[in-house]
């Protein structure tokens, strides 16, 4: 790992999980941000929704998805662009995701490179790649994920926010 890669904060969910994980007061001293998630949901769907600076809107995505039976691509608009393991997946498995946000402190719209996979030990496992955009010019000071289906992010899920400097 590059020496400029610094863990800003990390969290592991305890018993019962939580509806969302929100990183706030993100320092503005880095060039890029990386959010890494190992996660499972309490409900039988795969999607986190993303929140930037408290906003759930102004997201657009270009996606590639494979799920064990079909593969496809799509241009679409919404904020559920990361996948997690679902509750009925193989026990004790967790999906993995990485969200890379370059120039998060700048004044241009924010691009996001998101890759996420499930670890379900079955034919129905998912790989989901997104080139996304959040149309907001404010510097990112808060970043959150939550279970889109109204349940919780499950116990033992972890999220770590990294800052990356370009020198």
């Amino acid at each position, binding site marked *: 790992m590059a020496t400029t890669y610094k863990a*800003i*904060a990390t*969290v592991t*969910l305890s018993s019962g999980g*939580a*509806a*969302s*994980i*929100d*990183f*706030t*007061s*993100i*320092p503005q001293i880095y060039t890029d941000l990386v959010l890494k998630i190992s996660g499972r949901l309490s409900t039988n*769907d795969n*999607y986190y*929704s993303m929140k930037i600076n408290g906003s*759930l809107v102004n997201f657009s995505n270009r996606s590639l998805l494979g799920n064990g039976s079909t593969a496809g691509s799509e241009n679409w608009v*919404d904020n*559920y662009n990361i996948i997690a393991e679902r509750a009925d997946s193989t026990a004790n498995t967790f999906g993995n995701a990485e969200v890379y946000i370059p120039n998060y402190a700048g004044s241009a719209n924010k691009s996001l490179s998101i890759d996420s996979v499930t670890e379900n030990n079955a034919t129905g496992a998912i790989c989901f790649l997104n080139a996304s955009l959040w149309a907001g010019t404010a510097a990112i000071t808060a970043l*959150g994920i*939550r279970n*889109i*289906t*109204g349940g*919780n992010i499950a116990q033992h899920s972890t999220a770590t*926010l990294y800052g990356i400097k370009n020198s």
Partner: protein
Amino acid sequence: MTHKLVVDCSTGVTTEVELTAEEIAQREADAVAFAAIKAAEKAAAEAKAEAKASAEAKLAALGLTAEEIAALNK
């Protein structure tokens, strides 16, 4: 009560915060909207599959072989 986990990156302090009534309402509305989107996607996929099967049956009735029908799908 449902809570969220808030991580203050300036202090490193993690706090469990109960959702406000507004946040709960937003969460429920988003879940309903998401379910509607997924139901529409499922219905569209099923309709597409049914149309494909119907078309293949009609082609077979015209005398095309399974190999010839498969070749049309490529």
